[in-house]
């Protein structure tokens, strides 16, 4: 009853504070937070001056005594911030290239000055020099259902373009630029007690926020082309500067960019208007970018859920703004390219598909990127690779050259297999705690690989059902790992009964929470003539599980008469023998013949043939020889 009352109060509040829906007919999220910001960009000082009016609704059953806000821009303030300490310092950086956010005034609803109530805290590492988390003690605790309104004036000095934000000459990418609420997690949502989940800005971490309503007025010099996460409702221009009125609904962050050199292109996919801001000299890549976005929209819509906003903005930053490339802000994302991009190299497509995918994994399904980075990066990499393979070819989705091809999926696995640190830590780790460069290997690559392995076990249809259900159940909420596992267990049980056991926890225990590797091997094949039955052959296949994981796999056995047999191996035990007796000899054996278990760190030892195929190696070496023999001879006289 109390919960119902709270929800009623919330809806009443939302009805009061929001104007009529503009972008979508109904609110997609609870909109626990909302922001109205007037932002003015001064290109000469690289400062964005902001006046912000924001609210947070206490939807918990707790009395909350404070609010916590991210001041991400302070991560760029000095070499002593937590981010730069984790990066190894900030040698030689000039002061004009640093970034920070200065709170000029901070008042409550009744005009009460809250500046004395402010303090910086460092919940993750206690670093006294880090000021990326602001705590403000409320004059009175916020009771369940209460709305806390704040009014903040701030100046944000942008850093020289680095780590997804900043300026370079006349280029500006303005991200993580305003004071942003952390997420107050009610008891039971993630932890047993209700608390603010508001982490510092780390070198290896992204973000976590509530779905919010944004109304942002951006003022910039008239010659600047501006793009943002919002929909442009109106624009005024006094000849020297222009002000755009932008609105965004139910997104978790608001970023924008301004640069005079952008050219703007438009296209449409079903209900989605796609805008592309791209340097003029990359006009040849416009179709490539649109194509990538459309493919992403199609694949996600089909296999996960509907893209709910009627617009998306793609920003391809110029070379001088490369540091802001490859980042996601739900309804706006940045791609990554260069002025000269060969047609056979699909890097822009890959980045675009990936960053677009974050509209789902992080945007709609707003997971905690600080604490469970695999849930956005891993899931998204899994979909990125599937999309790239689906539309750009299974062997060519990264480089498609007549001489050489490689797929996106392959590059991810190669990085994981080659990493000496792949067993250092599990996927269940806070992002900033990943040691020895393992953050990307674990969060992106390993998670994608075990999602592929899961798909190999339960099948592609079930995997798509899992993600559709995950979307249906958790869209515009904050799911965590156990929520996803619950969805997997429910869907697998529905599709396959108890074929894989009571639930799939055994899988996640090894892959998500475990640190081991997976490596199956065909050790030997022996065919021995039977002494007792002349003409009969006793065949034995020796299989080994050299790794730490036990995942079920198929074993395909081929005989000398051309027949094949499929055997199942649950992967348990270090060793297994398959025996056959009959008039035919075993000629070859393949564990996981379709390479579905992409976690396996060595595909070469997964198979064995008594007849060695020498042709592929001969062909490769012959061609290398030809290249060395031919080309210097031809071109150097």
């Amino acid at each position, binding site marked *: 009853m109390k919960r119902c009352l709270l929800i009623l109060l919330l809806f009443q509040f939302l009805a009061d504070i929001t104007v009529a829906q503009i972008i979508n007919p109904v609110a997609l999220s609870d909109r626990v937070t909302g922001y109205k910001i007037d932002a003015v960009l001064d290109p000469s000082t690289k400062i964005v001056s902001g006046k912000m009016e924001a609210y947070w609704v206490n939807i918990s059953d707790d009395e909350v005594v404070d609010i916590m806000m991210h001041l991400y821009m302070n991560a760029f303030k000095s070499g002593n911030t937590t981010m730069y300490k984790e990066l190894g310092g900030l040698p030689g950086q000039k002061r004009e290239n640093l970034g920070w956010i200065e709170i000029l005034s901070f008042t409550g609803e009744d005009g009460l000055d809250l500046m004395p109530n402010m303090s910086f805290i460092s919940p993750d590492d206690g670093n006294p020099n880090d000021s990326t988390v602001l705590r403000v003690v409320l004059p009175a605790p916020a009771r369940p259902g209460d709305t806390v309104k704040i009014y903040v004036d701030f100046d944000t000095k942008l850093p020289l373009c680095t780590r997804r934000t900043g300026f370079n000459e006349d280029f500006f990418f303005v991200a993580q630029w305003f004071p942003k609420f952390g997420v107050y997690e009610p008891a039971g949502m993630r932890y047993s007690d209700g608390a603010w989940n508001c982490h510092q800005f780390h070198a290896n971490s992204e973000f976590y926020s509530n779905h919010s309503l944004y109304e942002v007025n951006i003022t910039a010099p008239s010659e600047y082309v501006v793009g943002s996460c919002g929909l442009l409702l109106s624009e005024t221009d006094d000849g020297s500067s222009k002000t755009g009125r932008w609105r965004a609904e139910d997104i978790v962050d608001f970023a924008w960019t301004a640069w005079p050199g952008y050219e703007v292109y438009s296209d449409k996919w079903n209900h989605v208007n796609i805008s592309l801001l791209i340097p*003029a*000299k990359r*006009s040849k890549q416009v179709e490539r970018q649109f194509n990538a976005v459309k493919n992403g929209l199609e694949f996600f819509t089909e296999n996960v859920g509907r893209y709910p906003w009627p617009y998306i903005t793609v920003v391809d930053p110029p070379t001088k703004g490369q540091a802001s490339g490859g980042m996601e802000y739900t309804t706006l994302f940045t791609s990554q390219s260069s*002025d*000269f991009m060969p047609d056979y190299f699909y890097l822009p497509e890959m980045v675009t598909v990936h960053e677009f995918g974050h509209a789902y994994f992080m945007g709609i399904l707003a997971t905690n990127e600080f604490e469970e980075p695999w849930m956005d990066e891993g899931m998204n990499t899994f979909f990125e690779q599937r999309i790239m393979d689906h539309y750009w070819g299974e*062997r060519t989705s990264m480089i498609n050259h*007549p*001489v*050489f*091809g*490689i797929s996106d999926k*392959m*590059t991810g*696995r*190669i990085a994981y*297999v*080659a990493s000496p640190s792949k067993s250092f830590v599990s996927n269940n780790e806070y992002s900033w705690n990943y040691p020895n460069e393992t953050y990307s290997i674990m969060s992106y690559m390993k998670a994608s690989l075990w999602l592929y392995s899961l798909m190999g076990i339960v099948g592609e249809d079930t995997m798509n059902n899992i993600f559709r259900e995950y979307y249906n159940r958790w869209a515009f909420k904050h799911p965590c790992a156990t929520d996803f596992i619950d969805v997997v267990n429910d869907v697998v049980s529905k599709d396959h009964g108890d074929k894989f056991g009571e639930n799939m926890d055994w899988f996640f225990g090894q892959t998500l929470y475990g640190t081991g590797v997976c490596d199956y091997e065909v050790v030997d094949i022996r065919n021995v003539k039977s002494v007792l039955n002349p003409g009969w052959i006793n065949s034995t296949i020796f299989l080994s599980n050299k790794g730490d994981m036990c995942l079920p796999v198929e074993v395909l056995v081929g005989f000398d008469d051309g027949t094949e047999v499929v055997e199942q191996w649950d992967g348990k035990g270090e060793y297994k023998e398959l025996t056959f007796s009959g008039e035919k000899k075993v000629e*070859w054996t*393949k564990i996981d013949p379709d390479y579905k278990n992409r976690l396996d*760190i*060595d*595909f*070469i*030892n*997964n*198979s*064995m*043939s*008594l007849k*060695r*195929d*020498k*042709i*592929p*190696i*001969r*062909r*490769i*070496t*012959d*061609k*290398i*020889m*030809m*290249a*060395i*023999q*031919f*080309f*210097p*001879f*031809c*071109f*150097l*006289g």
Partner: protein
Amino acid sequence: MKRILSALDYGIKGSLGIWKGALIIWLASFVFMGLVKIPLRGALSAGVGFSMATERLADGIDMEILGDIGIDRLGSILFTTAGSATLASLFSFLLNIFLSGGVFDYLKDTTNKFSFPVFFSASARNFKSFFSIKLLSGLLLSVLLVFIYLFIVLFNLSASLYIKIIVLALAIVLSLLYIQILAVTDYARAKRALNPGMKGTKALEIGFKTVFSNILPFFLATVFVSAIQLVVVIFVIRGIIGWVPRSGSALFALFVATQLLYLVNVHLKIWRFGTVTYLMRQISVNPGCRKKNVIPEPCTEGGTTE
């Protein structure tokens, strides 16, 4: 034009006449490349063992499978291959210089019968000079290639039509210069073959003076033969590299085809050498027919007159 046709005719006859020399060049290249190929093949075969993962190499290089050989092992294979390829290329380069001494010696008078002792003795005699000629011109040609490549990249990068036109024009000029430097290199070697006492640098100097004083015949003749060479290279890139033989016999056919094409290329190159040699002799004998102020080069110490 008649002189160019005569030069081409002389060159092609010379090229065919020295088929035994061409075979020696091919054989030398084959042996040196074998020094790269055999260890590489052995290492890769050991890496994949009796695995059927090689099936995935059926359609070309599969980096996932090659990566599973192990980064350390693959790294050492690639490092060793790169090392042996560099050494083989270096020796091949030196051997090419050596053998081209015999080729140019034969081409100065194609009426002589080819003889191995004469061929190798001329190769030895010309080696030092040819080395300096080839080293200097090779450096120059490499620099030109780099700049041509850079201009092509700039052409693609630039959005301005004005810059595109300038860059394209520069790339074309450098390409023409590249062809002309090829002719200079050939001229210098032909000159040195005729004048055994002449230093390589001197021959190169004369080559620059003469070829740039008589641009048209040298350019047209060289560009004609080089264009045919280029067609062969394009065929190799498009046809042979993209061809993925899946059977032993097809693989053998690939091997034979590549070696035949290499041999064809050797002959084409000798054709160019012969063509330039002919033009050199013609212009030296009768320089005034192209440009009145060109003085026939003096004989150097111990050199023969032409």
